[in-house]
């Protein structure tokens, strides 16, 4: 079972990202469940969403304490909370950022992508917020083998028809192509 923790800020679409990854995994014959952190969510506040993916049905509902993968939708979150808390050894961290976060220390692999710029370029903005969730899923597909990029693009276009669906699919693909692993000295 793979456990994924999404950290973002209210309005960035972390909850939707967790849901989409489960939909995509299901399309590929895997099982999953996704859930948000529970509280009074509001725009701008740090919030988490979680997903579990496995080859067999999942019925575990305890919270995720030791994620295999951490996805950070907003680099400012790194200053606000310990994003790598509980990360499994050799776990994967994916961050939406325009510069390498030098001071993030952990035992694992780091992937980065400038999803915010990709969304601004595509005008994927709602109420002033670049909605980076579909882009960051492209990065997740590049960094892990949880779901294929083609499946994600398909699922995104099933969830949003027309122009919006195309923009989100483009963001996902662009992020997939631009995501790279940071070589780190530990």
């Amino acid at each position, binding site marked *: 079972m793979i456990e994924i923790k999404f950290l973002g800020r209210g309005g960035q679409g972390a909850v939707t990202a*967790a*849901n989409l990854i*489960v*939909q995509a995994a*299901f399309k590929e*014959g895997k*099982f*999953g*469940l*996704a*859930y*948000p952190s*529970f*509280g*009074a969510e509001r725009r701008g506040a740090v919030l988490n969403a979680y997903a579990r993916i496995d080859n*067999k*049905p*999942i*019925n*575990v*509902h*305890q*919270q995720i304490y030791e994620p295999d993968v951490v996805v950070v939708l907003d680099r400012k979150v790194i200053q606000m909370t310990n994003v790598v808390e509980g990360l499994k050894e050799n776990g994967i961290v994916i961050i939406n950022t325009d510069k390498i976060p030098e001071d993030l220390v952990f035992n694992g692999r780091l992937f980065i992508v400038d999803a915010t710029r990709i969304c601004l370029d595509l005008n994927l903005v709602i109420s002033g917020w670049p909605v980076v969730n579909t882009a960051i899923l492209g990065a997740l597909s590049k960094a892990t083998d949880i779901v294929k990029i083609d499946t994600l693009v398909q699922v995104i276009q099933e969830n949003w028809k027309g122009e919006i669906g195309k923009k989100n699919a483009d963001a996902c693909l662009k992020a997939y192509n631009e995501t790279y692993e940071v070589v780190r000295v530990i």
Partner: protein
Amino acid sequence: MSIIEDKKSLSNVKVVTANEAVALAVKCAKVDVGGAYPISPQTSIMEYLTKYIETENIPMEIVRVESEHSAMAVAMGAAAVGARAFTATASQGLLYMAEMVYWVGSSRLPVVMAITSRAMGAPWILGNEHTDVLLPREWGWMVLFPEDNQEVFDTIIQAYKLADTTLVPVVVGLDGFILSHTTMPISIPDQSIIDNFIPKNTPKPYALNTEDPFTHGNAVHSNLYLEFRHNIFKTIEDSEDLVDEIDKEWSKLTGRSYGGVIEEFLLDDAEVAVLVMGASSGDAKEAAKKVREKYGIKAGVIRLRSIRPFPVKRLSKIAQKVKAIGVFDRNMSPGLGGMIATEVKFALYDLKNRPIVQSYIGGLGGKDVKIADFENILVELKEMVDGKREVEKVKWVGLDLAAIEKFLEEV
């Protein structure tokens, strides 16, 4: 088998939250009328239904009202004329609705209500707890509690069967947030299966009718009230087999069976078992497998699906096999114990060789309930069986009283 395992048989699969599973089931049950008033974590159920009305033109009328009290009054009025009725609430909403909930129970109107479990204030709290779902068990309602999103869908359909057959309204409880807001795949059966399973054209001699006017619930004297109460008692008491039969019938149509009143997990050779309701049952099952592997403890899980009818018969059978039952209550009866533990003890007291029953209380107000918590419970139960540990009136899980001191220091 509570989740879809045979992928080949999957038709019409959706990946949805449990709240959307409720709404989809209500749509498939062709419910006529719903009363809607928002409260977390229930709100999205009624939102999905209004969306289906808006975008799919489903023939359902939703009345938006000014309070939960009126939401139940809408459902009651609809059911009283023979329409299929639904509403949903949680927590404070249920408390405010209480008067009408009791009235519907006593009127024997076949309303189905979803309650997304949530703790009640004060203090102000959003987290999951089962106390609210359990209250209507004293109010003349059947109470069912599914484990996952697929079972939530299936149980709403089954609830209409149960309500229509017995003329007792049914609460379907589901874990607030932990399930209500969790996305999982569900398979939706062909509409014809549902139409045949819960036909709408059955005779309803109780339905109010302007051609032949009469009324419901008028004043009676004490020469009749006790008798009415007895009949409600008896109908619910006698429904244990019916819940099993409905589950079997559903299983023939869909391939999904949940064990009726109780899902028995690894109980065949079990020495100790934890009794649990709802979503955390999955974690309890993991724990049972783990303590079998790690310590060789023969552990199992008794998943209580039906709280009313309370499965006295089935539980008594299980109690002949196991030596200790730990009842995990995500609720409490202040000063006494867990509400379900109290009922389990009542149900088993007359057995000649009754097992140890230990009440555990935990997870109140949304405190996370972990696999490790259930492992501890199962290990403790084994120690009780072996005489190495005393049984206590109640044991608390995850209790950290120092947290209050810490909080007071911080503020």
